């Protein structure tokens, strides 16, 4: 064993030349101030650990995997698209490193405290993903043993070569992907918000331009329109709805997706004539 700690948390103190250990302790302010129980963590790892147990077997979630997966997608709405993309990518066994790279790419412009490993662990727990070998066998059934080596007559254990682990979507995972119909959600949205079709068309058209559209540009094009005055809505309200339908994506600017382009086609007949003429920023400032 060669490991040695080179980053000590204890270090020689220059201020201790006159220190009398027997006189210490009673007047240490920190000791009284810091009394308390061990603190709870706040990280994603903490959340995953807490989802488990208290040293006792956690009550098993006996709901079907489909239900647990739907629950996960609903409760992690901001990560829904990433979760579904993982599942869609894993219709065949995919090496873990490849899936991690995909998630990193998907979250490149959309930071999350949840890493690829966290998200996959949540999907696995929900029964939507499983760990398999490259040929599709459950990974837990294949265990690599440590190697025994003899050096100078002494027996040692060395880590064996691990089996390559892949992620594979389960039936529940596949069903979740197949049940996700963003175009239908967009159609429903446009039907429901028929009064705002010009607004939706305007936003989609702006974001369809090369390089997409920045938030201030979208705000300037929408916020002063008479259509959004009563009840008062602002551009992010509509952008958010379009994003939830996967019609827009943030890539350092809002850009339309394939679904968004289909949405623009649906809105081809809508006449987008700014009701009142969108006020210029200067006019808006004057109003303030």
């Amino acid at each position, binding site marked *: 064993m060669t490991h040695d*700690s080179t980053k000590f948390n204890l270090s020689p103190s220059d201020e201790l030349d006159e220190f009398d250990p027997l006189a210490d302790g009673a007047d240490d302010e920190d000791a009284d101030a810091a009394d308390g129980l061990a603190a709870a963590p706040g990280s994603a790892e903490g959340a995953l650990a807490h989802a488990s147990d208290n040293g006792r077997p956690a009550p098993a979630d006996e709901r079907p995997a489909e239900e647990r997966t739907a629950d996960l997608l609903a409760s992690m709405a901001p990560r829904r698209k990433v979760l579904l993309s993982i599942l869609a990518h894993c219709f065949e066994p995919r090496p873990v490193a490849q899936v991690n790279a995909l998630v990193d790419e998907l979250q490149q412009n959309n930071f999350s405290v949840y890493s690829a490993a966290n998200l996959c*662990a949540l999907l696995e727990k929900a029964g939507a993903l499983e760990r398999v070998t490259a040929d599709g066998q459950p990974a837990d059934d294949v265990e690599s043993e440590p190697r025994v080596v003899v050096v100078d007559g002494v027996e040692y254990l060395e880590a064996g070569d691990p089996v390559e682990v892949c992620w594979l979507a389960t039936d529940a995972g596949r069903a979740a992907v197949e049940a996700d119909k963003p175009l239908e959600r967009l159609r429903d949205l446009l039907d429901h918000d028929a009064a705002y079709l010009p607004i939706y068309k305007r936003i989609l058209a702006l974001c369809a331009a090369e390089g997409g559209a920045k938030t201030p540009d979208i705000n300037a094009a929408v916020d002063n329109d008479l259509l959004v005055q009563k009840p008062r809505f602002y551009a992010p309200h509509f952008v958010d709805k379009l994003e939830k339908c996967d019609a827009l994506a943030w890539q350092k600017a809002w850009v339309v997706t394939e679904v968004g382009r289909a949405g623009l086609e649906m809105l081809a007949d809508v006449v987008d004539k700014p009701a009142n003429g969108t006020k210029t920023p200067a006019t808006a400032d004057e109003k303030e």
Partner: protein
Amino acid sequence: MAEARTPETVEATGAADKAADAADEATMEDFIQLNKQRAATYGLLSRLYRVEIDEELLEELRGMRFPAKTGSDEVDAGYRLIAQYLSNAWDNSVTDLAVDYVRTFIGHGVDAFSAAYPFESVYTSEKRLLMQEARDEVLAIYRAAGLDKQDSWKEGEDHIALELEFEQILANRTVEALERGDEDEAFSLLTTQKNFLDDHLAAWAPMMTSDMRRFAKTDLYRGLAHLTDGFLSTDRAFLADVLADNDEKR
């Protein structure tokens, strides 16, 4: 009383003295080596308890050889479990281990019985609170040895990582003392190590490792519990033997 010596006996005695010196030198080399290994093991244990395992450490662990038959069943069981885990490490092992670290050492309950809290105060105070007498005592011992915690360390000084690191530092000082031929200092340091083990580490760590076995889900942290128990117990016996031998010689 002086003993009369013939030239032959002087020559023979001289050869024997040289052989004895050589043997002492070899023994001293072994003794120094042994203390270096003790320091390294304390260092490894301290690191494993201090914070979660990162990619770098995981790779380092995967490249290590673990003795298979040390003579301590607990140590052997610990190394086997750790080697077993490392043999099945995968791309997301660091996350799995981070989750297990939180589950094992931090927990989520408020009843003070929800994890293997790595603080001596928790196991030696009636209400299982942090920052109790044990912390004051170890802090005084660290300071008596000219040590204090670094500003970057935000936990109590009675965290097991610091107590193990204290033993590591003293073992390293023992090596330095032996290398410069200061045996009195070396044995004084070994005595401090033994006392610290008896009064602190070995007095409470077994209760914590017992909890670790309940809470940890990965073989790595389960193995760490066995390894800690086995190593502390072996080191305690080693220090007792060494110091008893030294007392006899004196």
